[in-house]
């Protein structure tokens, strides 16, 4: 920290600590982010304090009572796991879904429940007795098969029902998301910005609707796939500084449709909207190449 004078240093240290805890007041964030962008020592200090913050959360799993037997009373209900796994199955990529779709894939195949009763009493040596045994074995075999099929069908029906429920709830979520996007686009203060693809992504384009009161709708197409460890990050460049809006979730076909909240900083004197390529997880200030840029028309 030798680069800062003492008084400045302690103010910056305060801000870094608060930033690590997400507790820095919004109005102080741009100045700190600007400083962080040019000060490796402070960035390092931030990472250290963020590790402490991560540790606060992780410590909940390390305390003695969290591991004790009575903690089980305060655990998520057992069906939550099934709900999560079933919902994941229902939304798996088609190629991936083809493999684990039979519910029995992880459980051993249903055993014929009645098979245990096939212990045969010491047979007499008469042919009739053997025939009777053979017939009963055939019967038991058939019954077991029926039981197995019935179980399989019940399990299939359940899986299908759960998949349908998951599809319905994902459709509901889509409608809700669409409605939320329409709220932004229809806002009285909504501004439209067209973004052009830059030399790194010449075929890409994007459109933004931003409203100070409702947030931002961002749509893009033809975004190139990124190398591992990279992500697209969206920025509103204001007269003060670039403000991160968040990371973009790109669909396999290169499109993006997102509704994002706008902080007060992002709505103050915006001059441009841009997308850059950054390390996965994002960065506080843009470092990578710009792939999409659009100028905000002055009011």
């Amino acid at each position: 920290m030798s680069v800062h004078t003492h008084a400045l240093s302690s103010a910056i240290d305060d801000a870094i600590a608060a930033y690590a805890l997400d507790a820095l007041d919004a109005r102080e964030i741009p100045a700190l982010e600007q400083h962080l962008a040019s000060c490796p020592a402070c960035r390092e200090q931030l990472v250290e304090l963020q590790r402490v913050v991560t540790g606060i959360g992780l410590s909940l799993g390390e305390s003695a009572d969290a591991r004790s037997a009575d903690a089980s009373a305060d655990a998520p209900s057992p069906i939550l796991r099934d709900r999560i796994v079933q919902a994941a199955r229902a939304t798996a990529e088609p190629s991936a879904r083809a493999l684990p779709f039979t519910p029995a894939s992880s459980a051993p195949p249903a055993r014929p429940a009645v098979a245990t009763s096939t212990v045969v009493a010491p047979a007499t040596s008469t042919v009739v007795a053997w025939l009777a045994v053979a017939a009963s074995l055939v019967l038991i075999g058939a019954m077991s098969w029926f039981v197995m099929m019935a179980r399989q069908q019940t399990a299939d029906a359940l899986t299908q029902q759960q998949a349908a429920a998951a599809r319905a709830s994902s459709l509901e979520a889509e409608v809700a998301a669409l409605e939320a996007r329409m709220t932004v686009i229809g806002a009285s203060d909504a501004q439209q910005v067209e973004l052009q693809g830059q030399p790194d992504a010449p075929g890409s384009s994007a459109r933004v609707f931003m409203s100070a009161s409702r947030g931002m709708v961002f749509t893009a197409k033809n975004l190139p796939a990124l190398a591992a460890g990279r992500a697209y990050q969206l920025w509103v460049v204001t007269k003060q500084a670039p403000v991160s809006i968040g990371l973009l979730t790109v669909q396999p076909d290169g499109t993006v449709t997102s509704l994002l909240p706008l902080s007060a900083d992002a709505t103050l004197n915006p001059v441009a909207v841009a997308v850059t390529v950054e390390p996965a997880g994002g960065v506080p200030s843009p470092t990578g190449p710009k792939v999409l840029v659009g100028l905000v028309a002055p009011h």
Partner: protein
Amino acid sequence: MQSDHHLLDQIANGNAEALGQLYDAHARIAFALAKRVLARHEDAEEVVQDVFAYVWREAVRYEASRASVAGWLVMLTRTRAIDKLRSRQARPDLNQAADPAPVIDASVSHLANPESLAVSSDDARRIGVALTALPVEQRSLIDLAYFEGLSQSDIAERTKTPLGTVKTRMRTALQTMRAAMSS
């Protein structure tokens, strides 16, 4: 017992059972954190479900960064739990307010660096001990920021403490825990 990264790799390839195994390994801590923030059992479960749904969608991307999975889950859980807390608190106002504040907290600061999520369980335990040992006025301030998502100004107002004092205490508290971690 498969490593988190191995599981994440399988999740990225569409293996839902691997998601179940990741859940077995980390759901308890995620639930404990969400419950601490939200108090209501069903709200905490909703957050945990939301977090694992997000992991299912984003595993491909995250797996590439090779950062700590436990740290990532904790960060996701905290962000979502606090979003939910805020939206719950905002709900009574929704009837009259025309423009509800966005409830999604981008929380980009914590995503900035994968190293910020890498904390060993030993260090986490030390941090937990150091947190408990903090003077009560420092500890309550960390609680308000971490578990309630309050900003420094909110905390100053809530605790009727000068903003400057809040800032100094917050820094001192984090630095004390930081010192415990490296010892």
